[in-house]
């Protein structure tokens, strides 16, 4: 019980729980639909999902300012690529939250003649760009760490390369790929925050890909991705060392 009190006292913690619940409803609704559940029950699940979505939008009314603050802080980073990626990602997030606020106003009936579909598409576009920049930042970090690891192993590598010259070029390529994958696995295993961030962003990106129509999957897959990324997000709140810094 004390754990819940401490957990929910943190900012965004309850919002993440409701996000997980919302995407669980999406997944549940899709599964039940495939297995032929009653229309009434499906309608109730959809209503619960919509209620949680609207409630979360209300809670997020101040997040635009938070994202702008994060963007301002990221300008002072030393690494150029990180500075660019994180700042622009946070700016996109700020725009996403601004569109989200407008959507909330429309859905609560404050702006009755609003084109909800247009603003929804806009908000997902900004969310998509923010996720692309997050993934670019992750890729950059991975590349840096892989290069560092490879430099450490260079004496052994050169011996392997001399031995490989004798083999055919295709085997050479396959072996190089295996070495790269092994290196990638090693880097991700020894950097849990980076691994969590990569998986989270990779799961999250399927949501705007589906909503914008760029890569349509099904509601079940979207729900599963959203649920996974929400659970990982809750993990980073419970264990703050898992959060990728800066």
């Amino acid at each position: 019980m004390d754990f819940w009190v401490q957990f929910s006292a943190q900012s965004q913690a309850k919002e993440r729980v409701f996000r997980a619940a919302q995407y669980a409803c999406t997944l549940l609704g899709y599964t039940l639909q495939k297995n032929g559940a009653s229309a009434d029950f499906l309608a109730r699940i959809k209503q619960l999902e919509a209620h949680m979505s609207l409630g979360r939008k209300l809670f997020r009314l101040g997040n635009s300012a938070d994202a702008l603050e994060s963007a301002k802080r990221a300008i002072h980073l030393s690494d150029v690529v990180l500075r660019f990626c994180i700042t622009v990602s946070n700016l996109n997030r700020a725009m996403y939250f601004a569109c989200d606020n407008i959507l909330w106003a429309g859905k609560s009936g404050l702006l009755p003649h609003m084109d909800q579909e247009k603003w929804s598409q806009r908000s997902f576009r900004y969310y998509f760009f923010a996720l692309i920049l997050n993934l670019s930042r992750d890729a950059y970090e991975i590349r840096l760490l892989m290069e560092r690891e490879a430099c450490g192993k260079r004496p052994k590598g050169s011996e392997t390369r001399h031995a490989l010259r004798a083999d055919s070029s295709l085997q050479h390529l396959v072996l190089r790929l295996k070495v790269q994958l092994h290196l990638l696995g090693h880097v991700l295993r020894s950097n849990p925050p980076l691994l969590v961030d990569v998986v989270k962003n990779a799961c999250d990106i399927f949501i705007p890909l589906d909503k914008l129509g760029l890569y349509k999957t099904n509601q079940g897959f979207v729900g599963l991705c959203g649920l996974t990324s929400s659970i990982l997000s809750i993990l980073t709140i419970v264990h703050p060392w898992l959060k990728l810094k800066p």
Partner: protein
Amino acid sequence: MVLVSPVNHFPHFFHSRAIQHTCMLLSYLLERKADKEMVIMKLKKLESSMRSGRKLFRLGNMVHAMVAARRTTQLPDLVPRLCLTASNLSRVLYFICDTVLWVKSVGLIPDIDKQKWRNWATKCYYYSLLMNLTRDLYEISWRMEQEAQREKARKENSSHCDEQDQDLFSFHAGGLQPFLLLYHTLRKHPPLLLDTMKNLCDLSSPLDQLGIYKTNPGVIGLCGLLSSLVGILTVASPLMKLKH
């Protein structure tokens, strides 16, 4: 800025509550005006949207109330211990009723008697406020006693009588003296004043709903707004929060 505080999410809710009650107050004030129907409709929609959003985020608060009840059973003084524990247990019951009402409002279980559960929720909230006020009155009374004894000791020990002291305690004798003592006590202990004010303001809504003292949505909105402002103040400046 309290709104952007990354530390505690409660400021968001105090803002939601403040906005909800402001809407209630404004729609009551504008009800008489002829051409403000559009504005009133939007205010009512905003108010209901805030209310349903807040209800969603209150879902885990029953655990908070249970932890608080466990904590208050260990207070040293008898009266605050009894009052606050009873108040927190009553809040636990209120949050249980609130969760049931949320389940009904979302439509998960449609055949719930909304009126009955809302009545129970209001009663539990009312009892918890009464317990809080009892504790506040106890604190005020013993602090007033302390203050009176201190003034008496000061008057006896001082070699020369100050003109102002004469005015306050001997000239305005009889009916006014307890009120002046109350005023001085509350001025010296702002957290106690704020807590009493908050509980009194919160009392207006259940009194109206239970039919004990019917007022109008304007008064309820105003009292709710004042209580939310006090809440925001205690979060922004933790010194203002009444310690157990």
